[in-house]
């Protein structure tokens, strides 16, 4: 899932400076599951902003709503009727949600209430960790199911650097295990450690962000265009 974190309240207040009436829109999917932009978080954040702006003598009216998926047009279209009365929308969706709103409602100022962090999942209660960078060319086959692109600070593809602390911690952050230490342990346990001797060639990053804006077109799923007949 996409994991996000709420922006500091000071940043949000700065964004809302001068606005009289704002609609805060949460999202019921990824960011609800990671407790950043679900119904409850929209409520808590809105109350905090109301109180703070009232104390400052420049109260902002914040109304609250939530959609099931902010990243799909079908789920947000219905909001169009009410947006005219607001100075801005504060999206508590991920970056995709913010942009879907912006695409759909070009006449409305859409502001981000979250910092979108990564694709990952919970590893223990209250902890989420990155697991994928969407490089577009999955190499988990070669690395024992552990991704060095997202989990190694240097994105190494052929083994650990010299900076693995005793016990297999990454020197960049001692709270983080070295991805290559984990890869080694796992491949050793599976008795496929010989595969690590194969030299992984330079990665083709053109399928990653480096190749430019990415999109997937599935012709089999596309609606036939009217002028094409049939």
């Amino acid at each position, binding site marked *: 899932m996409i994991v996000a974190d709420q922006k500091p309240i000071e940043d949000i207040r700065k964004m809302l400076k001068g606005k009289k009436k704002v609609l805060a829109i949460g999202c019921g999917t990824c960011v609800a599951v990671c407790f950043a932009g679900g119904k409850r978080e929209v409520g808590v954040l809105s109350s905090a902003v109301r109180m703070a702006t009232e104390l400052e003598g420049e109260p902002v009216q914040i109304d609250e709503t939530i959609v099931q998926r902010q990243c799909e047009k079908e789920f947000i279209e219905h909001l169009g009727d009410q947006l005219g009365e607001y100075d801005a929308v504060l999206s508590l969706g991920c970056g995709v949600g913010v942009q879907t709103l912006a695409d759909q409602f070009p006449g409305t100022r859409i502001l981000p209430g979250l910092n979108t962090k990564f694709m990952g999942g919970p590893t223990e209660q209250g902890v989420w960790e990155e697991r994928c960078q969407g490089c577009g060319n999955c190499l988990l086959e070669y690395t024992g199911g552990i991704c060095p692109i997202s989990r190694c*600070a*240097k*994105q*190494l*593809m*052929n*083994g*650990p*650097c*010299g*900076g*693995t*602390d*005793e*016990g*297999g911690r990454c*020197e*960049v952050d001692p709270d983080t295990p*070295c991805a*290559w*230490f984990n890869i*080694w*342990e796992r491949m*050793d346990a599976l008795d496929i*450690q010989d595969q*690590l*001797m194969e*030299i*992984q*060639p*330079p*990665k083709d*990053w053109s399928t990653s962000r480096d190749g430019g804006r990415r999109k997937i077109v599935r012709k089999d799923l596309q609606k036939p265009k009217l002028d094409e007949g049939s």
Partner: protein
Amino acid sequence: MNQTPLKSNSRLERILAAGQFAVTGEIGPPKSHDAGVIREKCSQLKTYVDAANITDNQTGIVRMSSIAAGILIRNEGLEPVIQMTCRDRNRLAMQSDILGAAAHGIKNILCLSGDHQSFGNHPGAKNVHDLDSMQLIRMFQEMRDNSQFQCGEEIKGGGPPLFIGAAANPFADPVALRPLRLKKKAVAGADFIQTQLIYDMDRFREYMKKAVDLGVTESVSVLAGVGPLKAAGMARYMRNNVPGMSVPDHIIERMEGAVKGISNDDKKARMQASRAEGIRICIEQIEEIKEIEGIAGVHIMAIEWEAAVKPIVEGAGLYPRPEVEN
């Protein structure tokens, strides 16, 4: 002597090909454009080492370019080993820089992942890591041997004559993987290896035994990293904070013992006694290293203490450095 044609004809390669025990040193460029700093450090190392590494923005701190500093020492008569990290450059820049370096007559290159930028003075920088050190070794090897750019395109006029090095940290976790990783670097195309600083000779002998058994030393010259300790505190700090750094208690005890009986107030005398002991330990370690099977030389890291190189090389019976035919 075998007649295999040399790959780069660098002095370091010729020394090793002649079966001589090689000695390399290290120079950290300044955080400025002051060429005088490089020349001063160079004067301390010249004639005592066969070649000197020039670090590449080590610990992620911006310094004078390693290639530019390498040209400076080359002009002073000291052969450089250019360090190149994967942190700051993509494959275009790396190939372009190595062609430029070769055009200036630079031959030795050391391929590194690079310290993470979070340790340096621009922690907000974007790191590159387009290639890793293994892929960098292989890319340079293919440039040299196949006259090919990484994309497969031909390098017209032939590839650059390089002597390709890599680093090894024998005691970093996972320890069982380290000899295999050394082998992988040999397979990728490394001609020589310089190790992380070694203080634990027993563990290093075990590591080298594994390397020899894996056949690594048949194709690669391993230079053991050594460095003089300045003080017991430095030894403890390295043991506790540097990944893979194994500093045995007896070394720390010797460094502590060196200042026993000298008044705490006499800082100068304590420093001198401490440093003299650091140099003695380093010399003894080189003597031990000479006896280890598969070792082709030492890499002396005396960063910001270049003056220590002379007494170490002399003390270890490695001076004068041999002359090798060009």
